[in-house]
């Protein structure tokens, strides 16, 4: 019998090639060094299997991080198989059984995996009809699939009765017959969250919850300052503790600013591990001369590769580093079997990438490493790599037992990577008729996503300047799209005011993109932009943009009281083609607004003297119930356009809409994110 793995290796079809620029690699959290070129199997059996119990199992390398990919991909299969979603079981992000996947990021699940699952399911549907046709000697045209049964006149059979547990052998045709969006019955509807019931009862198992027989608990000693090197270690007190093993090891490569050296402890329970860690006496080399969170913007400019911009009229904006704060920190359990094969359960957006990292670090072949991704308690781009997995694996190897390495919140907020900080300089000129004459935009360090303006301008210069980042940085929901939209949309507001034009009118005058105009109109209509009335301390702002096939526009009302900013009301319109699941899309849009308010108003990583000062939730404020405005969403459904992702773009308009509203309320133009960590001076 050949295994699923062998099957892919032997017969795998169409080749997908991904080309990553330096900037992409930087933004994807340092991942993607390997495995960028892989085969996307075209065998139906690689993607789905009709089980003898009557369920259909669907395999995908994508993972569930809260964005409801498990549900949307279930809908994809259900739609094309004419099968109820409850009869579909998704197996996700398991490197032993799911087809290779680069990772769950970049809003790619919906535009790429969703149609792939539909194609596989549509091909399976046709094969089931073939099977019935042969078995019953009935013409294909007389056979239909209705509610999960293959039917021809008075004859009917379940999928399982036809396949009897055998694989569906055949390839996915290049253009299988897919159900058009206008005829969808399951796709396009608000199918309830798959596994929702297990989540509200606490039964659902996440990476942090994995337990293995004989498992030990691991803790890792990190430097007191990032970049510090271990000078000496006295571990005698820790080693004297019952059941404690102290591990000293060296990773193959540097792990960000935590260094290459591993000093860890393992123990039978977490408290003992914690006490053993505290008993380690370490000396570290001091670190000096690093930029702090105030001087870092100048540092970007000084270290810009290829030099800095020279136009003296450029207006500088700043964007702080911020943290993802996934409520479930990174976690991994690693276990070696007697043959030396490694299995790791870990919360990651890139299970195959983590497999490569583990194989490379431990000197194993990829076949010797099995990574499973139980669902994880969110990621937002923050769980691209295998930090916890690597630690767990090395500790497990040293201990000779399975080891659980769950990061604490402090570990997460110190040694994970951050959304890049940035310095952005912008300048534009407006013609007497209100059209843009020129547009110049320079992004230092924060990245290229969403860099290009959707507005028309006779002359455009848009440039990313890579620079030295003192902190470890990587992917974050929307990447630099949030920073670039913040600056562009606030500066457009500046230009509108200096040209004495209404901000909406000024945008429409310079915008030809129909889809963006449509969401902008939808947002202002919902908000009542034209009818808004100013009252003391209140202000109104709007912003819009597009990225990754999503179009977003937001209107915000803020109230500024003694310098404290409260977002009162937000209306946001979003369009990403044909809507896959309206309720879940609305949830994403609302959630992005809520999260975006944090980065807009108060989230910022503070650091000085090579220490992170915002290393706990008590020192780093994230949005709470009291910060949330009345949120009105408008979802524009374009059944004529293929569906795009929605996890990122809806976060991009909220910060500039708030910034423009603060200006409207106070006359103060705030050119830095966050805008009101300690309120605004009025």
């Amino acid at each position, binding site marked *: 019998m050949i295994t699923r793995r062998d099957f892919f290796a032997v017969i795998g079809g169409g080749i997908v090639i991904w080309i990553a620029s330096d900037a992409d690699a930087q933004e994807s959290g340092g991942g993607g060094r390997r495995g960028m070129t892989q085969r996307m199997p075209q065998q139906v059996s690689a993607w789905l299997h009709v089980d003898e119990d009557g369920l259909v199992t669907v395999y995908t390398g994508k993972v569930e991080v809260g964005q409801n990919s498990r549900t949307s991909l279930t809908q994809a299969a259900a739609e094309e198989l004419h099968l109820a979603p409850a009869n579909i079981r998704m197996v996700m992000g398991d490197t032993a059984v799911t087809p290779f996947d680069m990772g769950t990021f970049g809003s790619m699940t919906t535009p790429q995996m969703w149609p792939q699952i539909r194609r596989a399911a549509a091909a399976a549907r046709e094969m089931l009809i073939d099977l019935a046709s042969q078995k019953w000697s009935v013409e294909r045209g007389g056979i239909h699939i209705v509610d999960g049964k293959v039917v021809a006149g008075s004859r009917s059979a379940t999928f399982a009765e036809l396949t009897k547990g055998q694989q569906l052998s055949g390839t996915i045709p290049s253009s299988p017959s897919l159900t058009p969006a206008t005829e969808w019955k399951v796709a396009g509807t608000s199918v309830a969250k798959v596994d*929702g019931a297990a989540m509200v009862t606490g039964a659902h198992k996440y990476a942090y*919850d994995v337990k293995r027989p004989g498992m030990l608990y691991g803790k890792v000693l990190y430097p007191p300052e990032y970049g510090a090197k271990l000078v000496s270690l006295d571990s005698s007190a820790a080693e004297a503790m019952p059941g404690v093993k102290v591990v000293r090891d060296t990773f193959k490569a540097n792990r960000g600013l935590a260094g290459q050296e591993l000093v860890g402890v393992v123990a039978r329970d977490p408290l003992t591990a914690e006490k053993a860690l505290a008993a380690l006496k370490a000396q570290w080399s001091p670190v000096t001369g690093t930029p702090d969170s105030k001087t870092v913007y100048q540092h970007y400019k000084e270290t810009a590769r290829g030099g800095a911009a020279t136009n003296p009229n450029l207006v500088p904006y700043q964007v702080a580093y911020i943290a993802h704060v*996934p*409520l*479930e920190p990174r976690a991994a359990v690693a276990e070696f079997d007697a043959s030396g094969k490694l299995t790791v359960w870990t919360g990651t957006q890139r299970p195959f990438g983590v497999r490569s990292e583990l194989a490379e670090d431990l000197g194993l072949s990829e076949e010797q490493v099995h990574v499973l991704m139980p*669902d994880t308690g969110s990621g937002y781009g923050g769980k691209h790599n295998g930090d916890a997995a690597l630690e767990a694996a090395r500790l497990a190897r040293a201990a000779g037992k399975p080891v659980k390495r769950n990061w604490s919140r402090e570990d997460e907020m110190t040694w994970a990577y951050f959304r890049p900080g940035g310095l952005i300089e912008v300048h534009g000129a407006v013609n007497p008729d209100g059209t843009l004459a020129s547009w110049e935009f320079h992004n230092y360090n924060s990245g290229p996503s969403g860099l290009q303006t959707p507005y028309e301008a006779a002359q455009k210069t848009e440039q990313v300047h890579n620079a030295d980042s003192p902190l470890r940085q990587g992917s974050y929901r929307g990447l630099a799209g949030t920073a670039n939209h913040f600056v562009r949309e606030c500066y457009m507001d500046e230009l509108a005011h200096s040209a004495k034009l209404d901000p909406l009118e000024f945008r429409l005058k310079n915008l030809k993109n129909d889809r963006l105009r449509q969401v902008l109109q939808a947002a202002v209509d919902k908000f009542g932009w034209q009818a808004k009335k100013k009252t003391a301390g209140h202000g109104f702002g709007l912003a819009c943009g597009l990225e990754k096939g999503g179009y977003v526009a937001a209107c915000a009302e803020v109230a500024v009281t003694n310098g404290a900013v409260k977002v009162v009301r937000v209306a946001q319109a979003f369009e990403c083609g044909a809507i896959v699941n309206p309720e879940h899309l609305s949830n994403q849009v*609302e959630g992005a607004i809520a999260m975006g308010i944090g980065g807009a108003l108060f989230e910022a990583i503070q650091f000085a003297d090579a220490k992170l000062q915002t290393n706990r939730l008590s020192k780093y404020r994230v949005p709470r119930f009291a910060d949330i405005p009345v949120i009105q969403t408008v979802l524009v459904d374009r059944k004529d356009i293929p569906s795009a992702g929605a996890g990122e773009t809806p976060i991009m308009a909220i910060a500039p809409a708030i910034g423009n509203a603060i200006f409207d309320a106070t006359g103060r133009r705030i050119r830095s994110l966050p805008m009101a960590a300690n309120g605004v001076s009025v």
Partner: protein
Amino acid sequence: MARITHLDVNGKRRPIDADPERTLLSVLRDDLDLTGTKYGCGEGQCAACTVLVEGQPTKSCLTKVGAVAEKKIVTIEGLAPEGKLHPVQEAFLEADALQCGWCTPGMILGAVGLLKRSPHPTDAEIVSGMNGHICRCGTYPRIVKAIHTAAGKGAKA
């Protein structure tokens, strides 16, 4: 202090053998496999670890197991003991008041406690009563809606 040998969880007297200094959170998760109770911050800032102690929402990450050895503890696994969902659980599903679900158990138990204190809370009472809970996915408006729905159904702990 002597080791803790029993814990009254979800209506059952469960044998354990724990250092009294360990957190209730760790004993529930690591010893009793009640992993529905979640770690989020370890300093009482996010309330993902909320359980009910004598009916009161309590942050298990800040609670030493020695302090609750004789008390009645209810975790998320004990809220629907006969498989029938509690009205607050039902309301969370109905409102789609979750994304990743990590904050959900603590959020639900916090809401159960709130509705016990205030059976028909206003928006403002929900916001102030639940403000210690973090949902990083930002489903706050849906959670407010779910609590109203559960209140309408007369949810009780």
